[in-house]
């Protein structure tokens, strides 16, 4: 169950094909808006060296880590090759009344 919905920001605060950092309750997340105007969320730190992914570049469904260009599919969390090999955790996202919410599990 994804009972615990947390408001992140207004939907238009994230540009299309972009990402923002969202900190909540001692945890950090990355929240994405895809080129097709869908929203996604993953853990905020790269699984290689714990760098904030929100400083990275979003291209289609890929987030590229700013530090050493490790790549993840932000829709599935899948690590897409060296130097990253551990997947990212993903979280459910919804948009309601112009705001983005993520479900923390």
């Amino acid at each position: 169950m994804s009972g615990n919905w947390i408001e992140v920001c207004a939907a238009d605060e994230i540009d299309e094909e972009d990402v923002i950092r969202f900190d909540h309750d001692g945890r950090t997340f990355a929240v994405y808006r895809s080129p097709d105007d869908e929203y996604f969320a993953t853990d905020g730190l790269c699984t290689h060296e714990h760098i904030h992914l929100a400083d990275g570049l979003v291209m289609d469904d890929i987030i590229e880590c700013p530090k050493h260009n490790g790549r993840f599919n932000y829709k599935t969390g899948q690590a897409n090759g060296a130097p990253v090999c551990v997947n990212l955790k993903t979280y459910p996202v919804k948009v309601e009344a112009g705001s983005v919410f993520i479900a923390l599990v």
Partner: protein
Amino acid sequence: MNRPANKIVIVGAGECGARAAFALREKGYEGDITLIGAEPHLPYERPPLSKEGLAGQLDPKYVADAERYEAAGIQVLTDAAVQAIDRGAKTVRISDGRDLSYNRLLLATGASPRPFPGHSPTSSLVRVLRTHAEAAAIRLKLAPGKLLAIIGGGFIGLELASTARKFGAEVVLLEGLPRVLSRGVPEEIAAVVAERHRLEGVDIRCNARIADIEERGEKVEIDLDDGGILIADLVVVGIGAIPNTALAEAAGLAIDNGIAVDETLCTSDPDIFAAGDCCSFPLGHYDGRRIRLEAWRNAQDQGTLAAANLLGAAETIASVPWFWSDQYDLTLQIAGLADGAVLTVQRDLGDGAFILFHLDASGRLISASGIGTGNAIARDIRLAEMLIAAGKRPDPQALGSTDIKLKALLAA
């Protein structure tokens, strides 16, 4: 090329060799893979050795753990140096006396630190930094009250200086040229780096001429041409690296500032490829200019490309050179090559972070270098790299204006 690859031997178990081995499996290759490395460890990442990895970690940061090699069916021989290649018999001679046959060979032998002229690279007081073992030995000497003298103001020397300061060691850095980072880094960026080191208490001496280095018991005396004398607890020499070409040279392969390969990473023997720090290659984005890189992502990219071509793909080098360095909380990144630039444009990203874009006479973007705290410059450098790869001639004013997103220039 005759038979399809079914016995692939990789000489050199570093970043590049390891990446090539995994990439072969990712591309569906099912034959034998033997990865042979002279060091006692499985392949590990070198960049941390001068950075956070020097902070006393017992184990290096491995590229992959033993289970992953096992699961991928990659045989790794550690502590095993390849001593000779017999190209006629298609075998390599290993230090334990065995001959191993191959039908495709990849040389990923990397580079070795250039020793200080007239000094043994294995002295315990005058060291170099390339391996985990060397990093561990250097770490033991870094403490308050100890003086570390670094020879060479390149990336490794400067990164080591910043890490040594974290341990409280005193640091003097001797650079022979008028400024640090004179190879490949714009002066404005080198100045930011040098100033930060000064604020952190590193004594950087440019135009330094070393007359003599002498070990005296537990100390090392460095005599300078200007009459100055330094008494250091440890000297680390960081004056560049030399590609490991001896093996290839003895086998009669073409050498040209590294093992010479073509745009597919193939050496002068069609069954032997070379990749990473050990090879020189023609770079398509820059009129086929022959260069050699000592860069971590290049080692990975070329490892992956070599894997494809060992299997007969004949793909050509397409990536743009990219490098990063971390010192204190500063990160510097460089994409492309700035030689031949006629115009430089600065883009200020706030909090002192900035990027310099270099354009050639035709207006083409050929390089971007940036510096800032954390990852302030990373995204724009990455976009610049894509602009370079696409051969774009962006409006210089747009490059300088943060109102205009670089992503928009890429689409233009």
